């Protein structure tokens, strides 16, 4: 059931990304205080990539069609998850690796703090205590995977990240931004969008799973570009 919830959340995220309403707040390094170490709390992210077919025949047939679609999507995601395992590719790990690199390039020291996240969205409170490193906490909500806008259009990687940076000393909001790689239905206002790399295009789901190395590389490239954009936002 949890995986179905993630699939629904991913579909909603990509379909509604054009008009999402999260307020966008840019970072200002000069006035943020002496932020040297950024503590990345465990991102909220699915444990496997979504494989979204945004427009389906099932959508024309009400609840029964929706149930059929959900089952087909779950099957696609299981197959794709297996294909990614053959490449030892995990999207969450890739994101953390690339984000660490982007922060380091920007002159920050990345730190990590493990939290259990039950609910969608940002954390309501941030860790405190002697074991918590960092001058600021970076809270991430991420969706990722492959998406085709319809049955006659190719699958391409997509990544959606909402990021919030709060100062550790007083929980002041330092930044709140969204980055979308390959957003469906246009650009969310004042968010960062990254167009998909045409090198990673798969005519259909069979083509996607037939070349898992290229599929993993495409997803990794997308995640890296989003992490790089995060680094630019934190300059």
């Amino acid at each position, binding site marked *: 059931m949890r995986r179905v919830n993630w699939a629904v959340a991913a579909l909603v995220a990509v*379909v509604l990304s*054009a*008009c999402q309403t*999260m*307020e*966008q*707040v*840019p*970072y*200002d390094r*000069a*006035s943020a205080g002496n932020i040297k170490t950024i503590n990345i709390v465990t991102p909220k992210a699915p444990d496997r990539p979504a494989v979204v077919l*945004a*427009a*389906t025949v099932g*959508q*024309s047939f009400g609840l029964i069609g929706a149930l059929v679609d959900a089952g087909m999507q779950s099957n696609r995601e299981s197959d794709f998850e297996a294909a990614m395992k053959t490449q030892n590719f995990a999207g969450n790990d890739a994101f953390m690796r690339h984000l660490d690199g982007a922060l380091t390039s920007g002159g920050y020291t990345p730190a990590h703090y493990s939290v259990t996240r039950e609910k969608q*969205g*940002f954390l309501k409170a941030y860790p405190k205590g002697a074991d918590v490193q960092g001058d600021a906490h970076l809270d991430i909500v991420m969706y990722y995977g492959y*998406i*085709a*806008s*319809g*049955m*006659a*259009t*190719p699958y*391409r990687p997509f990544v959606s990240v909402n990021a*919030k940076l709060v100062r550790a000393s007083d929980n002041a*909001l330092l930044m*709140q931004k969204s980055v979308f790689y*390959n957003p*469906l*239905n*246009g*650009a*969310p*206002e*004042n*968010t*960062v*969008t*990254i*167009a*998909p790399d*045409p090198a990673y295009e798969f005519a259909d789901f069979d083509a996607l799973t037939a070349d898992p190395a290229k599929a993993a590389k495409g997803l990794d490239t997308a995640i890296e570009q989003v992490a790089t*954009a995060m680094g*630019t936002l934190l*300059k």
Partner: protein
Amino acid sequence: MSGAILRLLPVLPLAALLGGCMTAREAMTARLEVAAPACAAAPSMAPASAMTQKKKDAPFEATIRFSDAAACVTDAAGNKGVYAVVDLPAGEAGRIVTVTSYAMGQTIFSPRLEFRDAQGALVREVGRGDFMFSGTSLQVQVRQREGERFLVIASDGGSVGKTVEQIQATRVSSGTMVGAVYVPINYGVEGKSQLIFAHNGEVTTTLAPVPKAD
């Protein structure tokens, strides 16, 4: 209900969805050279465009259309570029300055920024690399700092003439009446846009207070 209205119904949700997010602008032919044989070494703060509010409590806004008549300046690398100056209204530091360069057909102004103080002295630069896409627009958001009075928007001569291609996927919601039953039909399409960075285009600057966090 007339047949015409019934035929319109399926596209209304999509139109509503996209209408609030996307505004198509008229096409412009890309200008890849600065016409003036010589440009100033530093921008002049006069005349500066004033920012206005559409209503009380709305963000301050100024839209500048860069054309052949725009003044020009030479950057540190010796590249010529056109520029315009925005007079930032007085207020507390920390407000959000959003600068958006819109695609005009395939042409998009390639911006860089300078913040200057009340005397016109350079306080901060925001380079072309800090601009990222938001759809087909180039955009940057920064917080205004103490003493930043003027915003200089200049074309970045180093990037003018370069091109970028973007792929955009769209899910289209349509439908049809089958007897008395409305049947939704959804399908996907893809479009490609080729943009060329130029010395001309249209740039909007807004100045707004920091919103409440989510």
